[in-house]
């Protein structure tokens, strides 16, 4: 287990394509739901405890290795009602897999590339990448949870010209929530090892799903999702 590998995996500069995705923030900015630090904080808290928790549990389960990646991918599909978000998750999963294979070469990752040419949901790949990097399930969960708020925050800085110090403070104040979500996700992944993917959380935010569909249909946008 290495803390440095977790820093690398969770770093926004890790070249896996996430920089072009706003995690729903672009649509929320356009709809007037994110206008400044307070509303960004509310958006991030909501995303973290819904889509973020679900993603974190999938990542932890993939990292633990007890449930096959294909079954976790099916579980992710069932928890992602928006076709646009399913397509985005697989696209980001393919991109992360390329980066992970280059960074932490592992036969397991090669097998995933071979067996799932269409890609797996990004949180599943994140868990597998964490595993290849020698990390533990809770690390994978934490990386997924952090990403669920980091993406929208960076995007909002670009979209609104939000003061980057305020934006970073928003993430810092969510630190306790991030740890709690990682704990819940790790416990759920433990459960899933015994009881299967039904034990994984299915928390979702309908507005994120609806907004993602609206965003995908827009001819003019800065972010891919």
């Amino acid at each position, binding site marked *: 287990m290495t803390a440095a590998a977790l820093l690398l995996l969770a770093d926004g500069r890790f070249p896996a394509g996430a920089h072009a995705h706003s995690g729903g923030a672009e649509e929320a900015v356009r709809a007037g739901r994110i206008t400044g630090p307070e509303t960004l904080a509310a958006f991030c808290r909501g995303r973290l405890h819904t889509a973020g928790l679900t993603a974190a549990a999938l990542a932890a389960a993939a990292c633990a290795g007890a449930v096959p990646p294909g079954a976790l991918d099916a579980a992710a599909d069932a928890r992602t009602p928006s076709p646009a978000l399913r397509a985005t998750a697989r696209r980001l999963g393919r*991109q992360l897999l390329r980066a992970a294979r280059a960074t932490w070469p592992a036969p397991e990752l090669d097998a995933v590339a071979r067996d799932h040419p269409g890609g797996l949901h990004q949180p599943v790949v994140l868990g597998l990448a964490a595993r290849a990097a020698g990390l533990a399930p809770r690390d994978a969960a934490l990386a997924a949870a952090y990403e669920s708020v980091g993406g929208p925050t960076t995007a909002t800085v670009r979209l609104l010209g939000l003061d980057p110090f305020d934006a970073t403070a928003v993430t810092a104040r969510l630190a306790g929530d991030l740890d709690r979500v990682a704990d819940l996700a790790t416990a759920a992944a433990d459960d899933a090892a015994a009881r299967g993917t039904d034990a994984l959380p299915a928390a979702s935010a309908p507005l994120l799903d609806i907004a993602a569909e609206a965003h995908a249909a827009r001819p003019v946008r800065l972010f891919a999702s």
Partner: protein
Amino acid sequence: MHLDHRETYPPRHTSRLRDDGTRRALRVGLGGPVGSGKTATVAALCATLRDRLSIAVVTNDIYTREDAEFLLRNAVLPAERITAVETGACPHTAIRDDISANLEAVEELERTTGPLDLILVESGGDNLTATFSSGLVDAQIFVIDVAAGDDIPRKGGPGITAADLLVVNKTDLAPHVGSDLEAMARDAKAQRGDLPVAFTSLRAPDGVRPVADWVGERLAAWRAVA
């Protein structure tokens, strides 16, 4: 999906060979400031080369799908040969720091419309420091124009000094904006040494010829190595 069949540690994390062992399409990046003529160059290259070569294009529009739509409107290529990639407000990131989406787009084009000879990747208009990663393209063209000021070659920057081809476009405008083409050529030579520079006017008939010839040479060299 990307699979490195033949190389354990490929110099680029994308394959160089097709499944049948032949070399994949040559990937050429076109970068440069906003409005210098990147899309016009791509369109002219497609029109000139498409009878001999199988071509596809990836665009990295900053905000809209303008570039992709311009190419479609002008029917330089069928729609399935043009992919637009979003850049999250950072066009240079998408071609340099995190090339994931672009790599996927070029590989997808090869898979769905290949075998291709040439893939052109147009960057969103950016600043003079924006260059392509060698992990994404095999060669890059930096397009500037005479109307943005004839001191740009003197100012330098990685695009000016290191691009495999520097294109100074819109020479037809030089007399109207008072740009000194000879000074631009001198400054470019000082910055680039032996690297080639092409002066073009895409308004002139066959104005893209110097660029098309250069692409032809690169393609011949690319295939010769296979």
